């Protein structure tokens, strides 16, 4: 992992932040929120691959890095599933 790559990633990160802030001009709605969250996911991925050097790490290390996310997804998915199916009252 070179310094050059790191600088490029930093530029990309700031660009993503700028893009996400620009998206605020859009109308509030699912599209805008998706853009914000998508930008956050890309930024997080960039930080993890380059600043945390996952790109250079071996498979086991990557598994450890993503394992937490995998288990966390259980918490999110099942809790949200329960909430959204709880009572058929909120329409929309």
């Amino acid at each position, binding site marked *: 992992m070179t310094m050059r790559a790191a600088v490029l990633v930093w530029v990309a990160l700031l660009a993503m932040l700028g893009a996400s802030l620009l998206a605020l001009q859009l109308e509030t709605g699912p599209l805008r929120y998706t853009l914000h969250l998508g930008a956050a996911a890309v930024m997080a991925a960039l930080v993890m691959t380059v600043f945390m050097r996952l790109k250079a790490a071996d498979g*086991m290390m990557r598994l450890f890095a993503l*394992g*937490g996310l995998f*288990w966390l997804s*259980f*918490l999110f998915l*099942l*809790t949200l*599933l*329960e*909430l*959204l*199916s*709880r*009572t058929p009252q909120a329409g929309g």
Partner: protein
Amino acid sequence: MSASAEPAHYLTGGWSLRGWLLTLDHKRIAWLYAISITGFFFLGGIAALLIRLELLTPAGDLLSSEAYNRLFSLHGIVMVWFFLIPSIPATLGNFLLPMMVGARDMAFPRLNLLSWYIYTLGGLFTMVAVIAGGVDTGWTFYTPYSTLFANSAVLAAATGVFVVGFSSILTGINFIVTTHTMRVPGQTWLRLPLFVWANYATALIMVLATPVLSITLLLIALERTLGIGIFDPALGGDPLLFQHLFWFYSHPAVYIMILPAMGVISEIIACFSRNPVFGYTGMVLSIMAIALFGFLVWGHHMFVSGQSLYAGILFSLFSFLVAVPSAIKTLNWTATMFRGRIVYTAPMIYALSFLGLFVIGGLTGVFLASLAVDVHLHDTYFVTAHFHYIMVGGAVTAYLGGLHFWWPKLTGRLYPALWSKVAALALFIGFNLTFYPQFLLGYGGMPRRYHEYPEAFELLHVMSTLGTGVLAIGYLMPLVYLAWSLRYGERAPANPWHAKGLEWLAPSPPPVDNFVTTPTVTEAPYAYR
């Protein structure tokens, strides 16, 4: 003991306080843990005895309601977090895991010691909670009772549990890394003893589930101190969210308690059947499946709570499915005895007791996974009986079995064989006397956490209380003869049971560096034939 009389090992030398309290030796840290959890076990046990004595009569005549509620909360908190969670991993696991992979120590010895200190700090907070008048929320800390209504030392108790969580996280990290990186040449993943696999899976759960409990308790603490309410219904908060977060930890926590127990039982049954464990691969897969799918079933604690019916059905389905790997393990333990040469030592009697109690606990779990039956049984004594069959009949019996199995290795001494067998039987009988009647009480409708109850339930409560007496004897006996054996017990050879496994290659007790020469592994585990 004079040090000159025996060869140097990890117990000789450095008998100063400093030599123990600042030790980085995983074997000594195991002892620090063993002594602490024994203390907490008997504290929780005294609470249990008082609870059972109160329930001898339907009226609340021995204790006030406040005292009773504080006692069952103390019993739960102490037994779950200060005994069961650390029991097998932090003592036997700490001692044996590095030896079983052939290492000199854990990957992070300092972290290991730190984990014990954090445990002690958590214990201190809990003691503060007791001295400050106790906590009356039950071990589950349900909101809004714990946040807005309870008038007891909730903050100190929650802090104690919050703190002790980090000790189990550190132990977990240590186990995971040690299993990954510290194995000697030849000790491949599929040659690891099941005890190592079980503790590895346990460590995964510790690392991944405990932080969710930590944050949940932190939220409770913040709501009580700063008034930052996350669960307050008046602000649109949802008490069910607390239950989701709590059980996301606390259901997998059951597997933290039972997986290491399963590991112990696999070692004992293989050794005293003189057979390799039946279906080793199946056992490994089952262990890992439990660690994974154990995270998908927490909602079965919430079937009557007002959660979505569809979520309830999904959680029920997962709960049935997670029972299958446990059933496979039971089948394999039984099949391991097939065409064996069975030796009835005390550890084996504990292991067979475990088998019986665990199966009853597991199958009654299937009752509770069935939605409509659970609605009737939820929060009754049936549930109390069920989880005691798993956690006490299962985990504690296995802990005692493991302690008897590895005692010669731990101490270099043998204990009286006859007494130990009597104690194992007393435990089995006492346990069933205590908890079997509670199944009947439960379907009969008797709710949990009741200080007083209708007179019709009296007979079974009396039986249960009487059983507690026998059970107490079953727990006190080992305390006496094991302590006795430390001084007067016969010296143990390196491998008194002719068992397989790297730990038995080391002298008893092992030297500080565990092995005289670094072992290598060339064969599958459990090569008893």
